[in-house]
């Protein structure tokens, strides 16, 4: 599935985050290969958001380091994209300008920016509403804009925090398939955080299971089913059961 398996894109070693004497992240270590799609699941309130905020450098880590291609990660040097749970679009820009915003900040020249925007909007099927404004489109459409914007900068690391948590199931299946096709075509490295175990098993090649607070990586499960995967296929159910047992808190 992922292309050159050997090259490690992201290396995190003993990433720690303390708020006063409360340890939220406790020496988290893992690696992600280039172009790999990894899902992160964990019990309720296991510091997933803090984990993402430290990874995306929105929040300084108390200790440990995050390396992208061997260097210390920084928003300016590297391309890090973060898709939040609630759709974040600039209300005063059209859909096209929203998708191009990431590249604009990165200072990518206008010609290439326009060409990349058109390509990705074609892929995602947003070309029809290119000139609409965010308040004229549905919430699920806004989330697709956010995902397209994230992919458009060709990120070294794409973080996604429960992007489809709020949508009804038919929409979620559709957008999950769309995400997988985008990922396969653009070969980005994706870290997908979700509490929905079924979604994690459906989307990811590898699942990292986080423990309760203080959070560390409890287990790692590889999911090598061919795509498109089906919820009812026994192997799928087996992996799903395995992950649920690791997390069961109710």
């Amino acid at each position, binding site marked *: 599935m992922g292309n050159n398996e050997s090259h490690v894109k992201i290396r995190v070693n003993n990433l720690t985050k303390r708020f006063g004497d409360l340890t939220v992240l406790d020496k988290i270590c893992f690696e992600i290969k280039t172009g790999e799609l990894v899902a992160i699941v964990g019990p309720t309130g296991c510091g997933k958001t803090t984990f993402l905020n430290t990874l995306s450098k*929105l929040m300084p880590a108390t200790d440990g380091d995050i390396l992208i291609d061997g260097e210390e990660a920084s*928003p300016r040097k590297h*391309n890090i*994209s973060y898709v939040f749970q609630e759709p*974040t679009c*600039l209300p*005063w820009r059209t859909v096209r300008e929203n998708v191009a915003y990431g590249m604009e900040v*990165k200072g990518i020249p206008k010609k290439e920016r326009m060409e990349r925007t058109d390509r990705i909007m074609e892929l995602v099927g947003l070309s029809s509403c290119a000139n609409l*404004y965010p*308040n004229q489109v549905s919430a699920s459409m806004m989330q697709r804009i956010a995902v397209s914007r994230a992919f458009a900068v060709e990120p070294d690391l794409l973080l996604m925090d429960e992007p489809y948590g709020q949508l009804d199931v038919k929409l979620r299946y559709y957008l999950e398939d769309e995400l997988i096709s985008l990922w396969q075509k653009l070969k980005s490295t994706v870290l997908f955080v979700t509490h929905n175990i079924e979604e994690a098993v459906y989307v990811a090649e590898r699942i990292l299971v986080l423990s309760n607070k203080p959070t560390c990586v409890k287990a790692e499960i590889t999911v090598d089913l061919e795509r498109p995967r089906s919820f009812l296929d026994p192997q799928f159910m087996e992996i799903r059961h395995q992950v649920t047992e690791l997390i069961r808190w109710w």
Partner: protein
Amino acid sequence: MAYEEIVVKKPLPLIALPCLSVAAFLLFWEWIVVSGTVPSVLLAPPSQVFTVFMDKLGNPNPDGAILAVHAWTSLQEAFIGYSLSLLVGIPLGLAMGWFRIVEGLIRPIFELIRPIPPIAWIPLTVFWFGIGLTGKVFIIWIAGIVPCVINSYVGVRMTQPTLIQMARTYGATDWQIFHQLCIPSALPMVFGALQIALAYCWTNLVGAELLASDTGLGYLITMGGRLGRPDIVVLGMVCVGISGAILGFIIDCVERRLLAGIRR
């Protein structure tokens, strides 16, 4: 509920009542003066105000200038002072909302000056600039600046935090976030300031003219008072009220077109 604009039929009396009450008010005003219950030296009836209005259009005395000159001076002062307060107040408020250093340096001074009623500056402006245009423009400028700074400051503060975080992960600098994110999302609040600042400027303009001026609608009111001509005083007040309403209406149209422009 997605259908808030549900049509509610307005019963007839709700349409008729407003016109009736205004007509009744004007008639009552006319009646109390004409019938002598209120001595005519204290208040002029609408009819007399109208005649003096027609007269003042052409004849400069008793206060030395025709109505158009008074109105023009007031509007001129208001326009310069108002636009200056927008030009200085809005960028200052926006910068204060985002950049810590600007807030640290400007906010204490702003908090010191803010509670001083603008017309308290009149004596100083008379000392510094005399009773001409500059003094009044200074007072109007100070009056208008306060709401501009406050609204712009609050506007930037209310930017959606996730938008800022999103921009940060793309590596946007503080300056990029400021002019690409904070300013556009603060615009509705900033436009809200246009109306409030206008009202403040207009109030303090009249105050300034009442106390130290040689032309202008405020001066017209004072002269009316000094010469014991209640009709001129009322004329002055009505003109101030109407021109205030017209300015408000203009600003409203400008605001609506600009707001539609940014698709909020």
